[in-house]
């Protein structure tokens, strides 16, 4: 009996060993929608190159995804092999030291720098020169507007974009003729203005030494514009991504929206599909160029299959056909320059009434400056937004509110 047992055991062990020799390795990828859809679409391509590597994709809503990644990085357990990080979080994740530095060997990500739109690489590079993520997609800022509402009010596209003052004047005409608001929230104008005229290497809220600069004239003018927008009754006081915002698009009560180019995809799929053909896209007013969003793929420092992760990331980001495919399927504007040269860009966009919007966006992307990121950007943004609320809702004086925000930020950053 003992003898038979040991024979059985040995056979079983040999069987397992044989099986594992042929078993596929699994690569775990954690993303947020709609990147999961995109990865599933390109998996067959990947399988051709690496038939023995399975890719397991997990996706959570964008906020939950970053919370989950924070928790995973905190404990070092349950980390994915590749994680998608949105631009708003990359600063924080990078500062924590939880992401692999891709500038070093064997990755040498710096060699790809010239192949991408230049500001995206800067976004993923820390002050010490560590590259913590490869750019996957970008969000060139654009102005979407309802052509039919503009026509009714007798306003042209040039009126909208000539200057901020002409933008607001156009908004008044639109309000009078159609009753529609110019924009969803006065905060949008403030957010764009403070990013609009930055020079290369400047930060939005902080200077190079890390001191907050929210009392500078740039912020004062931004607040003045926002206050004027509210006083003229041009904003719908709606927060983006809320149900009311979606309703505003469906019912045509919001006539323009400044956001990343990817909003076009959202508008056509779920926000307001019935308004097809009524929207157009153009550059931001007053020659402003800004970036909205953007995704990076990173490798956690404690991941176990880093070489394989790097292969997958290169597959997703440096291959022109994959980048183009993701643009076509999920509207993710490619960060790779060679992908932007495709004929696809010259094709008319049917949702935007046949406008060749992608060419406009490609051109806008090339003008966006590299902005210095800080770990405290989100803290500063919150302080500035509350100051703005006090000014437009509570009639507080602009300079007092900005000084309070400045003190707040200084207080927090000192930690």
């Amino acid at each position, binding site marked *: 009996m003992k003898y038979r047992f040991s024979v059985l055991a040995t056979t079983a062990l040999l069987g397992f060993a044989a099986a594992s020799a042929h078993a596929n390795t699994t690569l775990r990828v954690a993303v947020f929608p709609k990147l999961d859809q995109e990865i599933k679409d390109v998996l067959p391509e990947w399988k051709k190159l690496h038939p023995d590597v399975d890719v397991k994709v997990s996706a959570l809503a964008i906020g939950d995804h970053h919370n989950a990644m924070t928790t995973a*990085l*905190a404990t070092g357990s349950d980390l994915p092999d590749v994680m998608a990080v949105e631009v708003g979080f990359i600063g924080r994740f990078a500062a924590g030291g939880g992401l692999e530095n891709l500038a070093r060997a064997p990755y040498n990500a710096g060699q790809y720098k010239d192949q991408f739109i230049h500001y995206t690489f800067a976004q993923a590079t820390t002050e010490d020169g560590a590259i913590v993520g490869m750019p996957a997609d970008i969000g060139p800022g654009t102005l979407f507007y309802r052509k039919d509402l503009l026509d009714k009010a007798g306003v042209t596209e040039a009126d909208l974009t000539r200057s901020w003052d002409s933008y607001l004047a156009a908004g008044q005409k639109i309000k009078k003729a159609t009753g529609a608001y110019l924009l969803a929230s006065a905060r949008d104008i403030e957010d764009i203005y403070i990013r609009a005229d930055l020079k290369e290497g400047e930060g939005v809220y902080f200077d190079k030494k890390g001191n907050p600069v929210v009392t500078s004239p740039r912020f004062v003018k931004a607040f003045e514009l926002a206050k004027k927008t509210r006083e003229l009754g041009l904003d719908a006081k709606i927060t983006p991504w809320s*149900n009311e915002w979606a309703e505003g698009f469906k019912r045509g009560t919001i006539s323009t929206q400044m956001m990343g180019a990817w909003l076009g995809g959202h508008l056509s799929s779920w926000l307001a599909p019935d308004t097809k053909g009524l929207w157009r896209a153009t550059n931001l007013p007053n020659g402003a160029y800004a970036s909205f969003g953007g995704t990076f793929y990173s490798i956690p420092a404690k991941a176990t299959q880093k070489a394989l992760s790097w292969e997958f990331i290169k597959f997703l980001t440096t291959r022109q056909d994959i980048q183009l495919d993701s643009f076509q399927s999920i509207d993710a504007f490619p960060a790779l320059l060679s992908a932007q040269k495709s004929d696809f860009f010259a094709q008319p966009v049917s949702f935007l009434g046949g406008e060749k919007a992608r060419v406009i966006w490609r051109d806008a992307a090339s003008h966006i400056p590299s902005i210095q990121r800080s770990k405290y950007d989100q803290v500063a943004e919150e302080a500035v937004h509350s100051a703005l*609320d006090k000014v437009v*809702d509570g009639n507080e004086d602009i300079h007092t509110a900005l000084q309070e925000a400045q003190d707040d930020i200084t207080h927090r950053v000192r930690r």
Partner: protein
Amino acid sequence: MSDLMSQSEASVLEPREALPFPAAGRRRLFADPRKVAPYFFIAPFFLLFAAFIAFPLLFSLFLSFQSWDATSGLSGMKWVGLSNFTFTLTDHWFWKSLYNTAYMAITSGVPQHLIALPLAFFLQTCFRRWRNFVVGLYFLPFITSSVAIALIFSSLYSTDFGMINLAISEIAKLPGLHWIQPDHHIDWLYNATTVKPSVSVVIFWRYVGWNTVLYLSALQTIPGELYEAAKIDGASGWQQFRLIVLPLLKPMIFLAVTLSIIGGLQLFEEPFILLPNEGMGTGQSGLTTAVYMYRTAFHDGDFGTASSIAWLLFVAITGLMWLNTRIFNRGGMKEAGK
């Protein structure tokens, strides 16, 4: 075998004749399974308690003395002593959130009890056959998911498309009521002045049924003879309520108020879902301390400060508990014990 069983154990476990015990000489090395078995039975609860309640509690206390950016991993913790606490105590957003929390706790909590108690008395005296059904209706909001409630209410409160503003417009069309109509639609959840009352209404609506059930169950312990004796003595309904019900209900009022204080100070779900920007609202007008703690941890990435907020909130709740006990316990519990 009989010397293994003591008299106390005989009633707990049935004796078994052929226990697979080792030889008598090695018996002392193995614990008696009948003595050890109870510990195995209660172990699941204690394991879960240790893992999900005790450990997070102690870790949070430990964290409040550290500076920790979670994404740097467990090794990234730095001891900073009381620095997190001094920062929080000098942070005017924290004090603002405490003010908001206290305001909403009071404006939602006080009406809950003022209405629940007479309502319970009313249900006790006037409903007999339908009582359970009516109580069930009042209890329904309590058992409904708070996320579902908050989503529905945020649609109701919507400025341009919500039913409440629509109803006001419609009512204002009735003759003589046109003065109700405000200049423009009220931004219930957006305007700093209307945010807190709007959220308080939702919380009140949700918990009034729970308090009614509590008071109703306490009312049912009052013997009917007291009411009859009072009626014979010529007491009116109001006097019966004031002189019989209230004093005898003091322990239950104490319990219900305690639960309201704790729940009110820990307000998170309703503000988080109803208010824009994940609970921040406009200019922190609806920010509660629990939401602020969540944002400090996950939005700003500062787990140490967030833990200090949690413990300072705990101190606040404990303080109010003590006050509550002093007010109610001076009479309440001792009287009921007589």
